């Protein structure tokens, strides 16, 4: 490879020198005859027309290339939207895209067309044209009006997306850390999150999210570090946080993105309208899975911060929730963190009667396991 580069660059240098000396020789003969004024070194040379024509030819070829490549690659553009607001932003994306594409083609066409039409010609009379206030007014107001249209559509959609989540939204606590995501659910018994505090975080002690076990609401909370489940057709409110550096929750198919900021919880709510199974059927890809990625640089394995997202039918979702083990059950040592007066209440979750192992839909588990070993470390 090194050799190849060395050879190539030598070739390059030799070639350019050849071209230089050749053209210099040619130009010497040429400039004499064409240019009457020897002071005028910047006079158009014999490549002038070729350059003007070249610019226009470049543009024609570009149009063909753009259209071809657009058609060839468009199937992976904006992966199939699976959320309600996502369909709306996609719509406005394409509307804006059409608007700017019209601008793109018209304005570039003028630029390259004029380069071609008005390439130097000894006999042309240049029009001394310094300004035209009407023109300036027109081309200030037209973009301004177009812009205003786009702003208002954008504002409307943005306000809707960022409005308060509906009261019945399913809440999920999602925390970014170097380098992975952990999600926490409020549990099936009280459906209330226990408080958390970063000072209580303890990876070794089995409490990476800093759940406060002096708050009885936390007893039935459960968490998961390899997959997040959400119900289809129901508002979901992500309560987003980070515990070390910035991260950003990005769910490409859901058109969801929101930074995770240490010390400043953020949120994003949305409604998924296609379950994982729906998408598998629609795309004809039985192995399809929704994914969550990180889009704020967070260090070495930023590119590997993947979490699987499973969108269940609401009933399946409830079943899945019931099948999950509360933090206390997973790690009975956490009972030590519970104050004495609440121990009795907490005991229920530590006791060995495992509730509903058999409810786990077999498929879901294997699906997830089958894929999660692809997660990069």
């Amino acid at each position, binding site marked *: 490879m090194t050799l190849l580069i060395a050879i190539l660059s030598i070739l390059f240098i030799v070639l350019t020198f050849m071209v230089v000396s050749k053209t210099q020789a040619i130009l010497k003969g040429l400039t004499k005859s064409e240019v009457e004024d020897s002071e005028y070194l910047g006079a158009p040379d014999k490549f002038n027309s070729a350059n003007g024509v070249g610019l226009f030819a470049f543009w024609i070829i570009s149009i063909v290339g753009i259209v071809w490549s657009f058609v060839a690659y468009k199937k992976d553009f904006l992966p199939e939207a699976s959320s309600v607001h996502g369909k709306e932003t996609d719509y406005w994306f394409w509307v804006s895209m059409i608007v700017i594409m019209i601008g793109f083609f018209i304005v570039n066409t003028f630029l390259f067309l004029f380069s071609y039409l*008005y390439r130097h010609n000894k006999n042309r009379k240049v029009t001394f044209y310094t300004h035209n206030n009407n023109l300036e007014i027109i081309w200030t107001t037209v973009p301004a009006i177009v812009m205003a249209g*786009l702003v208002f559509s954008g504002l409307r959609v943005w306000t809707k997306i960022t409005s308060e989540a509906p009261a019945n939204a399913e809440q999920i606590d999602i925390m970014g850390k170097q380098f992975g995501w952990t999600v926490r659910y409020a549990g099936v018994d009280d459906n209330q999150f226990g408080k958390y505090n970063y000072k209580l975080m303890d990876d070794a002690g089995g409490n990476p999210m800093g759940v406060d076990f002096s708050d009885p609401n936390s007893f039935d909370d459960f968490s998961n570090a390899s997959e997040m489940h959400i119900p289809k057709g129901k508002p979901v409110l992500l309560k987003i946080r980070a515990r070390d550096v910035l991260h950003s929750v990005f769910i490409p*198919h859901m058109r969801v993105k929101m930074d995770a900021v240490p010390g400043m919880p953020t949120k994003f709510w949305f409604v998924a309208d296609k379950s994982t199974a729906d998408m598998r059927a629609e795309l004809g890809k039985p192995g399809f899975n929704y994914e969550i990625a990180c889009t704020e640089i967070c*260090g070495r394995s930023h590119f590997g911060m993947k979490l699987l997202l499973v969108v269940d039918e609401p009933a399946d979702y409830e079943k899945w929730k019931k099948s999950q083990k509360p933090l206390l059950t997973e790690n009975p040592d956490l009972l030590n963190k519970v104050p004495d007066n609440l121990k009795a209440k907490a005991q229920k979750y530590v006791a060995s009667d495992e509730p509903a192992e058999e409810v786990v839909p077999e498929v879901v588990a294997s699906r997830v396991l089958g894929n999660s070993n692809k997660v*990069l470390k």
Partner: protein
Amino acid sequence: MSAVSQVEVHEHSEHAHEEHHELGFIRKYIFSEDHKVIAKQYLISGIVWALLGAFMSLVFRLQLGFPDMDMAWMKPFLGDWISLDDKGLGKLDPNFYLALVTMHGTIMVFFVLTAGLSGTFSNFLIPLQIGARDMASGFMNMLSYWIFFISSVIMFVSLFIKTGPAGGSWVIYPPLSALKEANPGSGDGMTLWLVSMALFIVSSLLGGINYVTTVINLRTKGMSMDKLPLTIWAFTFTAVLGILSFPVLLSAALLLIFDRSFGTSFYLSDIYINGQALPNQGGSPILFQHLFWFLGHPEVYIVILPALGLTSEIIATNSRKPIFGYKAMIFSMAGIMFLAFIVWAHHMFVTGMNPFLGSVFMLLTLIIAVPSAVKGFNYITTLWKGNIIFTPAMLFAIGLVSFFISGGLTGIILGNSALDIQLHDTYFVVAHFHLVMGSAAIFGMLAGVYHWFPKMFGRMMNNAMGYIHFWITFIGVYLVFFPMHYIGIAGFPRRYYQWSGFETFNTYMDLNAFITIAAIITVFAQIVFILNFVYSIFWGKKATANPWKSNTLEWTTPINPGHGNWPGEIPTVYRWPYDYSKPGAPDDFIPQNVPFSATPESNLPEENELIEKEEEINSIKFDTSLHD
């Protein structure tokens, strides 16, 4: 200490100290106070940095285009950053990937397109085009370059330390950049980055203050503000932007230094890292982002405005036609400058900032598109019915206009907060800013070098090589950055070492490989430019004083302008700089120093009235001598 003053003196005598004693080599070429030498120093530094930044992009482009490639052959110069995997294949270290991206961005934005571009052309052209003997303070100007030089050395050294250079991206968001344990690049590399940037800011402030002062105070007789070439307007607006925004970055950096070294909590709160909860509470990482982008957004105009200024001059000269809408151009630049300060949070739509603020910034952002569009239209109308000479400079200027349009349009999508949710931090953004600011500004810089080379070095650059350079680079840039839009629309996040871990991003391998190949060709084509540049300095064809038949004052100096720029008196200015192809005139250009009384055949009616004023202008007396 040399300083130039242009005070109006009423009683005037002959000046004895016009002639200058010869300076020694060191004072003439190294610690020079001559704006032309300083400009060349900036230019050469900028070119060196640009090559380094471009080669870095090739390394990480290879990683993205060919993730399975054996990179062992780069071990000789990358050392431990290439590790051998179990199959004996050389792999780029992911931390080093991030460090490379960080350095690439920092170098390109600050060292090449701020120092290299403004430093070169503001320094070179301001005194020459406004008719001054030098900058207001030659000493400050020299200081500005040498502080920049020290800053460069520090940034360069940071490439070689064991933990590597800064690795938190060019925006260095804390907490990542504040916590040494979060990333090797947040250790000593980050410290050096901060020190280097602090010096850089000092240098750019010294430069900026000098530019503004010079333009305000040192214009020659008759050079009223409405006769300034658009280049000078552009440089002045740029300098004002820098003066007002760089100090904010400096304070952001200082607070970050405090957080890193003195235990303060400006940006830190509620952090648990390496099995330990840190004591910091109450800080806000978002505060840093506000401060950073308060510079960061004006910075992109600091990068592009000088390029647009150079382009105005080059397009008018080579179309042999006045720039269309001179006043509209000034007003749109003024509008851009003003608005540039109040759009910064469009970089932060999804940081959790109050959504109402998001709406306001979206509105302001889309407003700034209007003056930018006006500039594009004015350039194109300047070409209309012109008589275009495609010098290499002109070709690059036209390329700039095309990039500015193509890249600017996608800004309309990104400025829309609802659409930015999906596109933020994807390759769509990378494509957008590389066209509108990166490539456009680089093209402006290249156009400027080709155009003003004869005045800088007294020789011409080779045209044929210029054409080859232009065509490969122009096509190459589009081939590199156009497909990146597609990758971005598909959702590929930026600052990713590889995407294959995600099913969603497991496509487009062919496109990524294609981009990498196009980038390699484009970067290697710059060799043509370097050869041409070096060759022409020594052996290029001898230039004439005004090779492009241009109107501005720099072309009235001798072929190799000496210290003080004009051997005799500084020319007086009577007209605007764009009298190209004026009806009735024998030549297709009338330099600014030709009085209306000498051109009765081509004067417009209102210009005939100005003839009376010429006496008045002539009778002004400035003391324009250089003091030592």
